[in-house]
């Protein structure tokens, strides 16, 4: 039995790889090698909708699409990680480039001066 997390990834990979929105039945067929029940696909889709990764239209049957592309999500997350919000270091300890050009020059000089 696969974990819900893995199934969520499999479904998102399907939605991200195709351009068109997919119905639950189409998703089940696309993931046929996993042998999923339709209810399982619905459960996974509901969870993904709850997390804000998927939305559906009002057609019958409903078709599901990714809210944003993988790249957009990655860029959004990096934007948050690099952001200046005061609590950032408390939310996630980060190791990033945060030097002004002047400080970067000082850092380079420090490295060059010591053998």
């Amino acid at each position: 039995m696969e974990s819900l997390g893995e199934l969520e990834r499999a479904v998102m990979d399907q939605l991200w790889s195709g351009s068109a929105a997919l119905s639950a039945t189409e998703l089940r067929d696309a993931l046929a090698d996993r042998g999923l029940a339709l209810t399982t696909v619905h459960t996974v889709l509901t969870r993904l909708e709850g997390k804000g990764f998927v939305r559906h239209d009002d057609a019958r049957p409903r078709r599901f699409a990714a809210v944003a592309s993988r790249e957009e999500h990655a860029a959004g997350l990096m934007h948050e990680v690099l952001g200046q919000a005061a609590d950032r270091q408390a939310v996630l300890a980060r190791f990033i480039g945060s030097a002004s050009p002047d400080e970067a020059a000082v850092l380079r000089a420090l490295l060059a001066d010591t053998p």
Partner: protein
Amino acid sequence: MLPLTALLLGLLAVALAWPVPAVLARAGWTRRDPVAALVCWQAVGLAGGLSIIGALLVHGLSPWGGSLPEAWWAWARHWFTGAQPAGPVRGDHWVAQTLAAVLALELLGVLVLALVRTARTRARHRALLELLVDDVSGVDARVLESPVPAAFCIPGARPLLVLSSGMVAELDPAELAAVVAHERAHLAERHHLLLMPFVAWREALPVLPAADRAHDAVRDLVEMRADDVALRAVPGPAGRRTLAKAIVAAAEGGAPQGALAAGGGVLTARVTRLLEPPAELPRWARPAAIGAAITLVAAPTLLLVLPAVV
């Protein structure tokens, strides 16, 4: 006579609101022993809160009794039995009581809010990362597609360590190992918990320069501490240089705008202490600093629970 206790607590509060944090933030020894310095900062935060709230409380309740436990009991009873206080209750007593309650609620409330908000943000980041990135064997971390060099970790019961693909491309394997060790040190020593109260209290007390100073000092000290721990994974003088190079490489690759330059020179401080390690503090220094920290917290606590001094 309560006012002497209130006066002593008040003096302590004033000292902890300005001169003590100013001296500690400027002290040079903190870079040589970040652990002792972090203990001192936690003590300053705790003792500062205790003494200011305690001073207000003791003064506010002074008509009811000679020591805080006694006065508190008499004050609580007076609401039920209507028993009258020994001395006259003036306006300033009510003001002090109210301020004490407001301040205590604000400090605790802001801390709880910050914890809740942080937990939510972390859960969102985690959900996103679990969909976006693969476990990469060998690197001991997940890799997120992004050209900006960055490494970060999400603390929690199931911590998550993430490297950007830009970071992986920018650094050689030894440097990468140093960065991963640095981030793992943050996770292993729960540095986010040391920083959290100072994040919350800076938000709660924007008018207090000491709150800013304390936050920045603690933020920089946990980085230095993580550097020290990371050196165990990349030992020797070569290891120090490797970690320094990783810091510089990350700093050069990022920083697309001036807004990111808010590090306040901590990168320079970190690289300097890696390349030219300062002499170790004498053996007595760490016990002395920790002893001072314990005294700092014990003083207001004793003033509050022991009967009035005079």
